[in-house]
């Protein structure tokens, strides 16, 4: 190594800005709103505007502010245990998001693999095709699935006229429709990291495995797949985390019995106007989602440091 450049030593303004700007962004648009939501979750619902109390107002003096702190309580959290609706919603969300992740991986991995193994000249076009759905509004695409999946929809029409089925499949307004909708909506988030993880591999690794006696499928299971697992993990999290809190897809494609936490949350906010309980629901969901993220992070840092 040659000597360190001058920019490595000083803590100049440029460096400060580079760190400060994303930090300011995070504080303004993540940390501050998050603190508001925590505060609301510790409040009580009330018939007023905003619909909860206590409302802190520094203009009434510091002592009043401190006195009102005592009015905060965990009662909204305890109330989540009173009604099985909440727990059922969490379980329903985790179940559907988990199933969607598995189904998504089963669909996305072969797609990503064939993209990565396609002739180099085709790949930009294939990537563009994979993300092309993003050019249309998410809502419109989910609405489109209604016309495909409903009893007299395109899918049933096609299957009936081909003679594959004799009665229309009842998919729309079931958990199956939600599953299909989520997998479809997040497919690019799955394909791209997996594609990237396969594309990054030295192609001679598979050749080495073949040379050492592995068949094409053995080479895949022993070399390509294990080396692409970081991409699989990243893609799975990119689907699983937003899928848990998904509202639009279950609302449009799901049935009245589709229990997902996003819908329950929406009901608490807009139908019941119980902001504290809705906030508590949101905070618990966030904590639940932090668990897989933390596990992933720990795994990542472990694989980054040299194993000596």
């Amino acid at each position, binding site marked *: 190594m040659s000597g360190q450049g001058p920019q490595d030593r000083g803590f100049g303004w440029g460096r400060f800005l580079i760190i400060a700007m994303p930090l300011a962004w995070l504080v303004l648009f993540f940390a501050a709103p998050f603190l508001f939501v925590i505060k609301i979750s510790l409040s009580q619902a009330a018939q007023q505007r905003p619909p909860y109390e206590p409302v802190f107002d520094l203009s009434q003096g510091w002592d009043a502010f401190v006195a009102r702190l005592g009015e905060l309580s965990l009662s909204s959290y305890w109330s989540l245990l009173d009604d099985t609706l909440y727990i059922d919603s969490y379980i329903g969300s985790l179940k559907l998001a988990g199933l969607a992740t598995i189904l998504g991986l089963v669909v996305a991995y072969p797609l990503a693999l064939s993209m990565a193994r396609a002739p180099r000249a085709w790949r930009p076009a294939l990537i563009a095709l994979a993300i092309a759905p993003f050019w249309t509004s998410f809502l419109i695409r989910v609405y489109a699935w209604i016309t495909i999946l409903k009893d007299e929809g395109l899918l049933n029409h096609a299957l009936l006229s081909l003679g594959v089925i004799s009665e229309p499949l009842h998919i729309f307004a079931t958990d199956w429709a939600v599953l299909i909708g989520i997998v479809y909506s997040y497919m690019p988030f799955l394909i791209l990291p997996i594609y990237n993880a396969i594309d990054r591999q030295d192609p*001679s690794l598979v050749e080495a495995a073949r040379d050492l*006696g592995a068949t094409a499928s053995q080479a895949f299971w022993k070399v390509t797949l294990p080396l692409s697992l970081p991409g699989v993990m990243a893609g799975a999290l990119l689907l699983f985390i937003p899928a848990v809190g998904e509202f639009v897809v279950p609302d449009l494609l799901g049935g009245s019995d589709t229990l997902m936490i996003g819908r329950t949350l929406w009901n608490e906010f807009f139908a019941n106007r119980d902001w504290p309980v809705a906030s508590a629901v949101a905070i618990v969901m966030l904590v639940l989602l932090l668990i897989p993220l933390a596990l992933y992070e720990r795994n990542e840092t472990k694989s980054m440091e040299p194993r000596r």
Partner: protein
Amino acid sequence: MAPSLIRIDGVTKRFGTTLAVDNVSLEIQTGEFFALLGPSGCGKTTLMRLIAGFETPDSGSIFIDGVDMAGVPPNRRPVNMMFQSYALFPHMSVARNIGFGLRQAGHGVPGLGKTDIEARVRDLLRLVQMEGLGGRRPEQLSGGQRQRVALARALARRPRLLLLDEPLAALDRKLREETQFELMQVQRELGVSFVIVTHDQDEAMAMAQRIAVMRSGTIEQLGSARDLYEAPVSKFVARFIGDINLFDVRMTRGADGEPMIVSTAPQFSCRGIADTTMSGEDVTIAVRPERVKMSKDKSALPAVCDVTFAGEIVDSAYLGDTQVWRIKADGGALVRVSASNSGAGTETFERGHRVHLGFDRSAMQVLTR
């Protein structure tokens, strides 16, 4: 006679419109250390990949031990390859990398038990002097250690033939030389045939018993290092192997009818060196720099010199074991001269000195292409 280990019979391979390998025929014997030498894009790597089974010939056949390899996938050929990038599996330890080939129940290789595999991996680690490092990950190894692991892994299945793709390219100079000798020792010990692909003539000359010099998909010349150096068949081979002076000359006949060559730059002529059938033809003669004698005094040149001319030194490089000069001959051409530092040199030559150069007819190679 037993069939050759490898027989390549009129093999051609195209990629799109480029002809990577053009009707090549070649035989390699058991226990031989063979080199495919050539510049990048000459087809040497493609030829090796054809032997390994990663490419399929457009026409022609490849026989290994007399068996036609057409349709035989790489995992069922009695051949292993050491990749240029080493292609070590990053998610496996050194021991698991070396044992990979033993865990695949392959064609002709009986499935080994766990303890047999462990014993074989230990033997291989000892062979490449990596005992005790079986638990390491490839990323924790130095370049030289990775190269050894790649070698051990490629030898694990006891191949009849080991293909080595630029095995020393990633190593620094010092290590390269050491590794050369180690590769030769391993090859001799195991009696496995080695085919090495390289663009480095020193590497090929140092290690291989026979060298095939390749150029745009064909074998330009096949022979020992000595053959290639002392009797190149073309300007391409002469230039590729070592340093060379090439003079464009004309073949004519003297007044007495005897054939002679006439050079204009530098100006000289010489009788009685070549084939009498050639006359009135433009050819090239090749002279190795170490065969050119140099002196400041023309009368001090050895009497055997059939050709002499004068010039001025324009460059001089001291390389330790040898010294190299470039001389601008009076006719106009640049001539390279080299001499080993035997310590007995009486004359010193510097830039700007006027010198006389000479060589005898045995130093001249007549090249017609």
